[in-house]
């Protein structure tokens, strides 16, 4: 079996003393796509946030190893440099910081971390152009402030554009499909597929089967009340679409 890219063991985390994740176990290998589904409020975004290092959450127990590195001991920026990327469910608006400056800072910070020289202005702009094409991101958005006044769909496209620039080893897409129209969904999913390789992996958090028609998962997990209560193949997503969560809830609550 291939080496583990991410191994989360018995992860407990919460906010202000309230426990949200109550023992998550998850193993992901290079080349895999895992879908995480689950009812609202079950902790999917919390899991993404904890893995990315959102300081609002406190980890109380457990571990997460990312290609052998103790992920939880790293700053959010170093997690990014090590190859983790989170596409936010709610991308943050940053008035006054242009997309160009934002991306340049991100790219050059990573290069510095890797001991490389900053990218030349010409190379950087060329790369920006190429990566924009991956998700057909409007050129005009590049000169605007980060996410400021972007429509819901533009924000999501912008997340995948950033993913394309940063070339992560593990991407967590937290409801990247929400807010996208039908065409945009196809384009964004197409972008994600273009970036896939047998070296990297993707976690797709979604409520809908439709995204999974485009980004085909190898494994589907169901997160409920802070735990992964069910794991199956792609057919599990179809079953959920048909039956809803009640049977899962009943099964889990019996335990």
């Amino acid at each position, binding site marked *: 079996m291939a080496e583990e890219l991410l191994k989360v063991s018995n992860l407990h985390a919460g906010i202000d003393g309230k426990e949200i994740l109550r023992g998550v176990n998850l193993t992901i290998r290079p080349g895999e796509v895992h879908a995480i589904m689950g009812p609202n409020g079950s902790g999917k975004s919390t899991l993404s946030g904890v893995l990315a290092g959102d300081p609002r959450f406190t980890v109380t127990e457990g571990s997460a190893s990312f290609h052998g590195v103790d992920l939880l001991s790293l700053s*959010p920026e170093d997690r*990014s440099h090590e190859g983790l990327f989170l596409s936010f469910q709610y991308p*943050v608006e*940053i008035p*006054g*910081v242009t997309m160009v400056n934002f991306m340049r800072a991100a790219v050059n910070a990573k290069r510095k971390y890797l001991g490389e020289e900053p990218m030349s202005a010409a190379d950087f702009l060329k790369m920006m152009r190429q990566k924009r094409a991956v998700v057909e991101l409007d050129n005009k958005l590049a000169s605007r402030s*980060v996410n400021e006044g972007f429509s819901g769909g533009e924000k999501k496209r912008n997340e995948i554009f950033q993913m394309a620039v940063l070339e992560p080893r593990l991407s967590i897409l937290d409801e990247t499909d929400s807010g996208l129209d039908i065409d945009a969904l196809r384009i964004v999913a197409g972008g994600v597929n273009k970036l896939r390789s047998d070296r990297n992996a993707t976690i797709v958090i979604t409520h809908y089967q439709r995204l999974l028609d485009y980004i085909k998962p190898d494994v589907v997990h169901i997160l409920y009340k802070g735990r992964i209560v069910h794991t199956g193949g792609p057919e599990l997503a179809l079953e959920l679409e048909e039956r809803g969560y009640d049977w899962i809830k009943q099964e889990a609550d019996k335990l």
Partner: protein
Amino acid sequence: MNAAEAFGQYLALVQANAGILDREPDLLANIREQATEDAADLIETYKADKDVPAECRTTSLYAPDYGINLSHIDMTADIAASFHCGVPNLNCYLAVVVNDVVHFTDTLGRLPEGLEIYSLRDVPAKYSEESSDLISRGFPVGSLLLTDGIYIRVAEGCRVDKPIQIVNIFKSDTPLLTPRRIIVDAKPESAVRILICDHSQSPAMQHLSSEAVNVAVGRGARVEIYDIEESSQATHRHRQLYAQQAGNSELVVNSTYLHGGVTANEYNVEVDGDGAFTDLSGLAVLSGKQIVSNKVVLRHKGRHCTSRQLFKTAVFDKAHGAFGGRVIVDQNACDTDAAQTNRNILVSPDARMDASPQLEIYCDEVKASHGATTGQLDEQALFYMQSRGIPRDDARRMLTQAFMADVIDHIGYEVLRQRLHVLVEKRLNGDSASCSACASACRTNNNEI
């Protein structure tokens, strides 16, 4: 020692040097005489000033034992010779002031008709009489010790084609108190743009600049005064800007603090005429133990006037900022539209900011607003940036710069606006900790004095 005692000591020094001072121009002698008369009262009122941080009060600023240069000795002409502030490559009429000695004979170039610039030592008598109130205004200690300054007269209808830049430089081997004065008398329908830059060439030496910038904006005239302070921790500044505005005049003032020690800026604007426009703004980036106070007193007397104020401060480390804004709308000043905004961010837990906006309205038909907020950088934005690999400190700097952007963006003087964006970015990156590393490209040798 308090300010009154300090004044007493300086007065004794002045009296002991009566021989030297006897040979001074009448104008300066008159200022000195008047300062001696006014001193006791004025210093008492300043002592009572509790609005500003203790370090920014005149009682503290003037307390150290500074040397003075009563004999108007120019020990440092060579500095002026090698110094050229360009901001950069600014096409301007340039004056360099080394400590309190004004140099501009060759740097000014040919002045256009209607613009006259003199050292206070040789203002023609007809002008010094005409502008005598304007010239003599200032904090008494500064007035008492004044030996030079710059007098700018813009004739009626003269719209000066290029900015006037005044570069203030400190250079001394001993602690020094330097009185500085800039007079701008802009006659009706004239227009002039002035940029003042403060630097220190002896950054480790204690300096105090006691400065008065006195401006008369004539009917329908427009005056813009910009200043950039980029000196050192040991360089302190007490700067009073006084302006009086006639009908339909426009006054634009912008002040940028990039580096310095303790700075107390006072803005005192009297809008006498009807239909005038006043725009006061400022930004300060404070770190270490820097302390800056901006205190505005804006008085609307005329009718149908508009005033805008926008002051922002970013406070890092253990620095301390203060903003005091008082807008007074007199009984007769109907249809005044006055807005004042003060926004501050505390970037570190030990940073401190005092803000006290104040509106005093004695007239019913006015539109007046004021707002002051002091907050922190947006944690969610910081995390978002970090999650893209931007180190937290860099993210903080970028957000701080973004926070300042609107103050800079609203500057209509394009070359300066672009330059300020760069200067503020460099400041936040710690690139220009002192004048020697100043990014304003002051030292090119193509303009010898």
